């Protein structure tokens, strides 16, 4: 998450040297410690807060999981039921994130660029899946797609239930990260490209999308992280069937309920690694794309 967001401000943070007296140095030179007293205090507070909230608990999990060494991880992964849960969760989270990248960008575009009746209402409603308590979201989905579905769609206890729940709760992320960036894009940049001969599609591909990728990547990271950790919205509809619809969070919970803290910690650590990996990959892709132009 943080690494993806760093890309948004990265370009602006590079030093803008004056009038090119030393044009070669300014790009390469790593800034030395530029912290003022206030900034140092800010950084200190940030690190303490971040450590209390994030680093120490994470370290604790990793420590718990590592008590039994590598064997614990291997044992956890070798359990076929756990492995199935990981595959299902990561697979569906990736699928949902890819779909969000497309749909979220399209929705943001429509909200910013088009004018239609009901736009203001849509703009508000976008947040509902996110704002709803997840168990309420689960109830809503169950009512609509469950055994008593009024529309005749019976997706309860299938993989689709997991997908649906994840798509439902992660919908707003990319919309909300892309929307403000799109609003800030100045129309004269697109006009400049047009008068240089660029077609509408070329303008979107080479001018608009590169400006949006940092925001899309940040939203995708949020969306993926939320998806692999989702619990409330999918427990009701998915049925939590081992090997079929059981996701990692449910699996972790049942480990803990059975007093198997070590396995729970190991699984949690594995998911932590997956999340980090995806965030780093997103950041790399984002840097590539937004530099390409």
């Amino acid at each position, binding site marked *: 998450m943080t690494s993806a967001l760093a890309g948004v401000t990265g370009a602006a943070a590079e*030093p803008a040297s004056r009038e090119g007296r030393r044009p070669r140095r300014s790009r390469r030179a790593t800034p030395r410690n530029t912290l003022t007293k206030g900034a140092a205090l800010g950084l200190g507070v940030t690190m303490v807060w971040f450590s209390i909230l994030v680093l120490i608990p994470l370290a604790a999990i990793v420590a718990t999981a590592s008590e039994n060494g590598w064997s614990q991880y291997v044992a956890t992964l070798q359990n076929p039921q756990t492995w199935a849960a990981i595959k299902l969760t990561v697979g569906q989270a990736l699928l949902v994130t890819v779909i969000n990248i497309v749909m979220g960008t399209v929705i943001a575009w429509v909200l910013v660029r088009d004018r239609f009746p009901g736009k203001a209402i849509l703009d508000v409603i976008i947040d509902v899946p996110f704002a709803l308590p997840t168990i309420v979201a689960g109830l809503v989905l169950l009512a609509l797609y469950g055994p008593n579905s009024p529309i005749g769609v019976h997706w309860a206890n299938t993989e689709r239930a997991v997908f649906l729940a994840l798509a439902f709760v992660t919908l707003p992320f990319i919309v909300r990260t892309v929307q403000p960036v799109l609003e800030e894009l100045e129309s004269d940049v697109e006009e400049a490209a047009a008068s240089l001969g660029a077609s509408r599609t070329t303008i979107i591909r080479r*001018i608009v999308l590169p400006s949006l990728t940092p925001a899309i990547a940040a939203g995708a990271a949020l969306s993926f992280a939320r998806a692999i950790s989702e619990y409330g919205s999918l427990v009701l509809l998915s049925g939590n069937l081992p090997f079929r619809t059981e996701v990692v969070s449910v699996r972790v919970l049942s480990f803990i309920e059975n007093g198997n803290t070590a396995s729970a910690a190991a699984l949690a650590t594995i998911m932590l690694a997956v999340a980090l990996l995806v965030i780093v990959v997103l950041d790399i892709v984002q840097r590539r794309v937004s530099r390409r132009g």
Partner: protein
Amino acid sequence: MSIDVSGVTKTFGDFVALDDVSVSLPTGQLTALLGPSGGGKSTLLRVIAGLETADTGRVTIEGVDATRLPPQKRNVGFVFQHYAVFKHMTVAKNVAFGLEIRKRPKAEIAARVDELLRLVHLSQFSHRLPSQLSGGQRQRMALARALAVEPKVLLLDEPFGALDAKVRKELRDWLRRLHDEVHVTTVFVTHDQEEAMEVADEIVVINDGRVEQVGTPDQLYDEPANDFVMSFLGEVTTLGGVLLRPHDVHISTTPQLAGAAEGTVSRVLRVGFEVRVNVLTDDGEDVLLVLTRTHARQLGIEPGVRVWVTPASGALTVPSMKAAVG
């Protein structure tokens, strides 16, 4: 004629931004669109570029009817007040953009970009991002980018409007020299009369969506078509119901000339080598005049002194449309 605009009207809602505008801009010249804020200068430029479509009227560029052409097909270079840089591309990539779209060979693009960056004095910055350039440098880059595709006409909308006075002046002289080198038909918008007078071959004065006058800087200054043009191109004052330049008012401390208005000096302000004097005539007119310091000292001008003022012989005067402000 390079650009022919005839009978163009453009409205936004029920607001008329351009009202039946017709102008012809000759090939190879540097023309200024001059006028007050909100007068419709940008709108006219954008209609020429195809960024705005006229409600009625025609736009012809180099003999081709461009009225219905999209901006992509008009082959005009457009430079925006706020640079409109492609932030994520290096300076070289920005300049190359139009050529890459035209799928020119790589070597040709590189050579052309090189040549253009040299022309705008940005060679050493080619690998920088626009955020690492100063405002003036960004605008020069935008200019190179627009010139890269060899446009038939170059349109600049207040290109130096966002820069400080000194850089602005440098760049305007530089634009003039650049134009003498490149000779592409250029139209630039400004609301600064000094900028227009200094740089342009021809000036189109636009006010309230209408063309007030077209002419060379000298023509506009010496033969303004109306009181608006007269007052927009320089300082004016009213005396006996006519507009004239403050330095064209003759002043004396004795009633020398027939028909001179009698009055009292109300204010004397020294600005550098000149002295600005306000005279309140007995008819209630507040007349401003500008004298050299020596002249003012010779006459002994100071507040309270009785004086006689009259238009100097050969002074340019235009009937004032506005009621004289007491």
